[in-house]
């Protein structure tokens, strides 16, 4: 548990991360993701509870632990005037058997800006340099705090590929993100946190399948009577017009239900167009659990 004054940032988070696996800590801003990473890396001391990372207490024996762990802190971290290549070399020198910094800069597309001062790198370049610093020491366990924030889609794909390669080679990866797509694509285990507590956890598949709910989306003439549609369906089904002309029906979708919907639309003189049957995405699960309002 970690408190700041009267605010409890993290409360009773149980995480288990085996080698060669990826755990995604998913949650809205302020959920306690970064606090969790900082407690696990020994930058913050938990106010209560037990934390063991690779068998040691991160608050007690940081040097021995840090030699085995790679950290990508949020916002990176570099001397303001340092060149990208210089920074990576400083971090590489802290490890006994580092990866070749020149090669790492090359695969991360940073060779062109190897001599550019850190302050003048773009946000995405700074992120890639921070990622290089996290993995250059060949750690057993890597903490990536929002690794793809500010990256363009190409760079994000590359990072995903790297996370996959880390996992393949036996590294345990804990990453925080608020991108559902990222958690779904990378993680073996997803832990959804909000207000410092776990609200759901499991594999991406189990989380999206948990409720068993499905939905059918279609387009038609705006302003149809959705209550009438719901009445035409068996009990337990819901219907709504999400935005003008875009409808959604929630419940188990089978051929009879689909037929009922299209027949009802025909009765309204409307053609149900662009019909899609969708499983809930992780995003739906996330929004259901953490609410749809914007966080201050």
């Amino acid at each position, binding site marked *: 548990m970690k408190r700041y004054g009267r605010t409890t940032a993290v409360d009773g988070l149980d995480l288990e991360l085996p080698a060669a696996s990826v755990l995604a800590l998913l949650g809205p801003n302020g959920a306690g993701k970064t606090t969790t990473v900082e407690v696990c890396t020994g930058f913050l001391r938990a106010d209560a509870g037990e934390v063991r990372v690779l068998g040691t207490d991160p608050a007690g024996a940081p040097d021995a632990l840090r030699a085995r762990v790679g950290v990508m802190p949020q916002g990176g971290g570099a001397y303001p005037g340092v060149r990208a290549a210089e920074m990576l*070399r400083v971090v590489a020198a802290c490890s006994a058997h580092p990866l070749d910094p020149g090669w790492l800069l090359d695969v991360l597309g940073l060779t062109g800006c190897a001599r550019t001062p850190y302050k003048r790198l773009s946000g995405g370049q700074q992120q890639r340099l921070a990622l290089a610093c996290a993995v250059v020491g060949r750690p057993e366990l890597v903490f990536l705090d929002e690794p793809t924030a500010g990256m363009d889609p190409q760079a994000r794909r590359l990072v995903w590929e790297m996370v996959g390669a880390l996992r393949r*080679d036996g590294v345990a990866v804990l990453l925080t993100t608020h991108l559902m797509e990222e958690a779904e694509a990378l993680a073996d285990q997803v832990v959804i946190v909000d207000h410092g507590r776990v609200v759901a956890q499991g594999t991406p598949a189990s989380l999206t399948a948990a409720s068993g709910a499905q939905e059918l989306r279609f387009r038609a003439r705006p302003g149809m009577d959705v209550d009438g549609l719901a009445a035409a369906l068996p009990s337990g089904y819901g219907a709504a017009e999400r935005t003008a002309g875009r409808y959604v029906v929630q419940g188990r979708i089978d051929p009879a239900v689909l037929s009922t919907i299209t027949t009802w639309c025909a009765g309204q003189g409307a053609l149900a167009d662009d019909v899609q049957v969708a499983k809930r995405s992780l995003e739906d699960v996330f929004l259901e659990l953490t609410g749809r309002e914007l966080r201050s």
Partner: protein
Amino acid sequence: MTFPAGTFTPRPGPGSPGRMLAVQAGTELRLALRNGEQVLLTLLIPVVLLVGLTLLRVVPLPEPRVAAVAPSVLALAVMSTAFTGQAIAFGFDRRYGVVRRLAATALPRWLLVAGRLAAVLGVVVIQVVLLAAIAAVLGWRPAPAGVGWAVLLVLLGCSAFGALGILLGGSLRAEVTLALANLVWFVLLLAGGIVVPLAELPGPLAAVAGVLPSGALAEGLRLVLTTGRPPAPAHVLVLLGWTAVATAVSVRAVRLR
């Protein structure tokens, strides 16, 4: 395939302390020499003061003027690098997250500080060589017996001002550090016994300046380099005292960001 199988197979372990120190200190030294404001503070201003105070009679000094000016400017150089430059760099390094970045590696805390101080020593060596050479051209002939003592005083000055610089840069916000480090530099330059010898300062001010690291270092350097005699015990004790106090407070007060 961008990452061949086995690329990331874990092989962790801390680097050798010597290599960590050399790479960190070397990088910080290069950064200090690349930074225009740092070079202005640590090299240009001392050189201008050395030449200016020797050639222009704005401050009353015994002849030959360079004999009094050169040790004063060496003291200024130490203060500029170890205290003002160091505090500002440390403050902004914390702001930019590099201190946490390095603390998150296998680099132990003591090496993190040692690397910074080694970079400071590197800059001081460059300053001393450059300033001594210019002073020699201006006719400076220091007492040979005092040179060893002067090296000792410079090292003690680096530790006292270095510890104070770490304390200031490590505990306050970067902007506050920037303002305070420059203000303190200016006040100590004029009233702290550096350009104006203690004997020329008004009584109470001279008493205060005598127990400041600036006064102890500058008076000590002027004494050993003009007479060749060892420094007064007070000079050494004042510098050691500031080192001890600043180190003790730093251990508690310095934050990684």
